[in-house]
């Protein structure tokens, strides 16, 4: 039985938008996140899904304290961190890290990979006895990149590689929870699969918890333990993965699931049968091994 690591209660975030048209100065309140509650279990993954503008990314920012909430409470390991002082915030930051959607935008193009990955240590004043360079090499290796590339700049990597750098950065302070905000959305399918596998391996090895924000239900199905569905700022349904996918209760969840494009199940079955028979001449080409070379991970 796992413990709750992070819980949000009745989280609400309002933005005040100034009518940005030239003719109005009226202020509008826009409720991006409306009374959202969730628990993240230690070592597990909570996925938050929804379409664009549903408030899932704002929820991620509230959960990682990148935004201050309008109301609600956030607890980390039972401790209220809704309003955190400098000390509590520092502790929170060393426990909760974020991986962002756009691998290039989230890496400072003017910094070397080593500087990027060691930045959290630097910002939090954490000393590394065996040296930062050594830790960075280790982390690069851990996420499947060439440790000799630590002096390169982000622009010299492919999208999938850049996203691994973002993951390595998140791991540098040994966090307990990683918030992945659309972390695989910008990647090609084959690269996506590798990064998802990497995230799963890291979870198994390090006991990480994830909040996984995504719009792609098929991806969520692969990684989530629990799923929360959001629409227009509200959390419309929440449950264990299989429950949500096989027996959705809310109308919106049903619509969402129905809209996901599927391959003809007969074709899928036929292929599965062929694969099980092992009739393929080059059976050893697993997606992972294959795609790693495509991604250039260890190249």
């Amino acid at each position, binding site marked *: 039985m796992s413990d709750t690591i992070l819980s949000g209660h009745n989280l609400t975030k309002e933005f005040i938008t100034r009518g940005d048209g030239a003719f109005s100065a009226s202020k509008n309140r826009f409720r991006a996140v409306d009374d959202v509650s969730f628990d993240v279990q230690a070592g597990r993954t909570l996925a938050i899904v929804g379409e664009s503008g549903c408030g899932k990314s704002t929820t991620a920012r509230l959960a990682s304290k990148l935004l201050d909430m309008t109301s609600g409470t956030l607890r980390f390991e039972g401790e209220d961190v809704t309003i955190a002082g400098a000390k509590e915030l520092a502790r929170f930051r060393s426990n909760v890290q974020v991986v962002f959607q756009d691998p290039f935008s989230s890496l400072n193009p003017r910094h070397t990979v080593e500087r990027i990955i060691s930045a959290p240590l630097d910002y939090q004043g954490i000393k590394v006895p065996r040296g930062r360079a050594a830790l960075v090499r280790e982390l690069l290796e851990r996420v499947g990149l060439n440790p000799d590339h630590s002096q390169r700049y982000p622009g010299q990597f492919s999208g999938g590689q850049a996203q691994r750098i973002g993951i390595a950065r998140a791991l540098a302070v040994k966090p307990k929870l990683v918030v992945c905000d659309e972390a695989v959305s910008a990647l*090609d399918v084959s690269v996506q*699969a590798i990064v998802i596998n990497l995230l799963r391996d890291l979870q198994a090895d390090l006991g990480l918890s994830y909040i996984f924000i995504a719009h*792609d239900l098929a991806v969520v199905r*692969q990684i989530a333990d629990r799923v929360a569905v959001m629409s227009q700022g509200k959390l419309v349904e929440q449950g264990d993965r299989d429950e949500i*996918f096989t027996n959705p209760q809310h109308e919106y969840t049903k619509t969402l699931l129905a809209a996901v494009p*599927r391959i003809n199940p007969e074709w899928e079955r036929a292929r599965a049968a062929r694969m099980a028979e092992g009739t393929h001449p080059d059976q050893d080409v697993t*997606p992972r091994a294959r795609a790693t070379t495509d991604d250039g991970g260890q190249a």
Partner: protein
Amino acid sequence: MNTTPLLEIEHLTITFPTGSGPVDVVRDLSAVLDANRTLGVVGESGSGKSMTSLAIMGLLPSTARVSGSIRLNGQELVGKTDREFRTIRGEKVAMVFQDPLSSLNPYYTVGLQIEEAYRSHRGGSRRAARAVVLDALERVRIKDAARRIDHYPHQFSGGMRQRIMIAMALCLEPELLIADEPTTALDVTVQAQILDLLAELQQETGSGMIFITHDLAVVSQVAEDILVMKDGDVVERGTAEQIFSNPQAAYTRSLLDALPRIDDPFEELRGTAR
């Protein structure tokens, strides 16, 4: 049956000069498409799938070198001048792009942007063209079309903008429609609507369609024939059923393996592969 197919591409190669010598973005591509059928072109970024469609439209940058043959109803397109291509574009082949917001000119109403496509080929009065535009907007299910015709692109949602792009493409009733990642920028529910719409319209008009996408699940729903591309090469071709139930190329298989599924028949298999 010995009629000419709608579109015949033979040994198409597209080359770009770069600082480090010429690079083939498409190599030796051949394909055939008949009216009322859909050809899916699948590949990841940089596979050259979009270049092929730009070559059919004559919209490649002037530095591109094209060899091989593209025949539309038997008429050779490779080597045509920009002026000659004008009678093809819009009139015979129309295109729907990925990002409908940046593909529409923000300075003009959607009505005018559809109307100018129609009038530059068919001429006629603005009043007559407006009726055609209204009809096109209604066919793509834009509610309150009579009012919306005078709105600007930024006043529409993403899905609505893509409908407008489709209306623009269909107002001249082209024989071939090229849809280049038409649903990639859209939410999944909107994507489903747009895919339905495209299928319905194709049934009405009987045009051929080339559907370019990176998404295998989407292409499995819309296309009868499929080309799988990688780094400018066609690695596999076949009917949708062949590709999905019995893929031959290792690359196709790896793509299919990597594809996350909403109802996953391979759960256990993948589990062991890990």
